[in-house]
């Protein structure tokens, strides 16, 4: 049984201007709204790293948000462990594109968010353990604005992992980071996954990210998005894009599929 199953998923937004203009008659077109996702069918196994690629604005984030329960599908359903997703839940932790840390809380308090029901002593131990895990020891009592971009991502990761979720959902987790920090955080996400083996869904627009991290790569088409490619990558880690010929061929294929030529 697969961990996450997406069945005939559709999403459209209502265009308010069109609805108000068309008043009573001819409501059929307006009620359909703007189609974002069109008939998406996917299955993810437990512990897989799934990287989702697609042209910008195609609905990648919308797909993630529906898996997380932040948005409701217009049609179809998302099943997690065979149960339909009805709303956000601590079993599926979302890592936000721009920091989801609460800026009025220190790193410590942010990590505490998911551990607040533990006994004080156990809570303290668990918070420290997860802060140490992402190498933010000694920075516990700083506020997010006092941290670098990379440290903020690590803090949010620690907060998410601390609740021991089944799934980590990351919306462009490396966007806005400089090149070296991007590489470093990517490496940490991979190492973290080796350690805890959570099902991890990552939306990215970086093809190399997908090739380095993914057990499975999904390519969505432009809006309304359909699944253009679903490919399992049966390579071990660490992966070296410079040496692995198959990965490099796949990279060319992905560049072509996303409408850009790799060699300019």
């Amino acid at each position: 049984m697969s961990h996450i199953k997406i069945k005939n998923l559709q999403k459209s937004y209502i265009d308010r201007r069109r609805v108000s203009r068309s008043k009573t008659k001819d409501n059929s077109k307006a009620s359909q709204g703007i189609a974002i996702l069109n008939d998406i069918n996917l299955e993810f196994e437990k512990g897989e790293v799934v990287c989702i690629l697609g042209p910008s604005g195609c609905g990648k984030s919308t797909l993630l948000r529906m898996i997380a329960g932040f948005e409701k599908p217009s049609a179809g359903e998302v099943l997690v462990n065979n149960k339909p997703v009805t709303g956000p839940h601590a079993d599926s932790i979302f890592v936000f594109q721009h920091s989801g840390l609460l800026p009025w809380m220190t790193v410590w308090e942010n990590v505490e968010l998911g551990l607040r029901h533990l006994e004080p002593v156990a809570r303290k131990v668990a918070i420290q353990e997860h802060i140490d895990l992402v190498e933010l020891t000694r920075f516990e009592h700083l506020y997010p604005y006092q941290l670098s971009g990379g440290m903020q991502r690590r803090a949010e990761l620690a907060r998410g992992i601390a609740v021991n979720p089944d799934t980590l959902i990351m919306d462009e987790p490396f966007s806005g980071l400089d090149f070296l920090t991007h590489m470093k955080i990517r490496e940490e996400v991979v190492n973290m996954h080796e350690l805890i083996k959570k099902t991890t869904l990552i939306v990215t627009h970086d093809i190399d990210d997908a090739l380095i991290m993914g057990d499975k790569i999904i390519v969505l088409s432009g809006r309304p998005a359909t699944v253009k490619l679903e490919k399992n990558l049966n390579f071990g880690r660490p992966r070296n894009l410079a040496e692995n010929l198959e990965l490099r061929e796949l990279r060319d294929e992905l560049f072509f599929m996303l409408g850009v030529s790799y060699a300019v």
Partner: protein
Amino acid sequence: MLNQKIILPIISFSVLLLIWELVTRFSGWSQQVFPSPLMVLISFQELIVNGELLKHAVASLFRVSIGFFLAVILGIPLGIILGRIKIVHLLLNALIQFLRPISPLAWIPLAMLWFGIGDVPAIFLIFLSSFFPMVVSTSVAVEAIKPTFFQVAANFNLSRYEILTKIVIPAITPQVITALRISITIAWLVVVAAEMIAVQSGLGYMILDSRNALRMDYVMVGMIAIGIIGLALDFIMQSLSQIESTAWGRFTK
């Protein structure tokens, strides 16, 4: 940098004093009409020594404290409710926007009729003057909270009560502190006006009473005292934003 912070205001105050001194010397007005800085200083000392100034200042501060306190403890919760519950917003927002532009001073006749002469009408006016800014600023701040924070709350299964205490209240605190600064200034403006009409004590009364006695030096002492206390009130409110757990507001957009 610190030196500049101290020296530059001293320069501007000195220039004001100098202009004041020159005007009193060369305008041809008598000291009774336009007292000189020195004369006002002597009167200032006189009113401090005989306790008059302190008595009136305390009376004004008392009214402002009560009125402002009531406005804050009622205005912030109402603002939060307006910002969070759409139906209440639709129900009350137009009403509040209708009442808000009516100057508290326009309420003076009714306030005196309802509450008589004394502290109560003055407190009522101060309450009105700061209540609406508090409500409106708070509800605007609540509406401006980033949806991401509520999604984080839902993701970590926060209860309604926890959403209030861990998300809404801390998120609006920087804007609420700004609103407190603005409201206390308005309240302080209004107390003087209210005291000129409805009561027999306070700095506003002192100014009016001195005018009737043709003591313009006392009038100016009253004005200066109002300015100094206003400066101090703003400083107190501003220092709230230096508290560590609210400092993020100055760095996070």
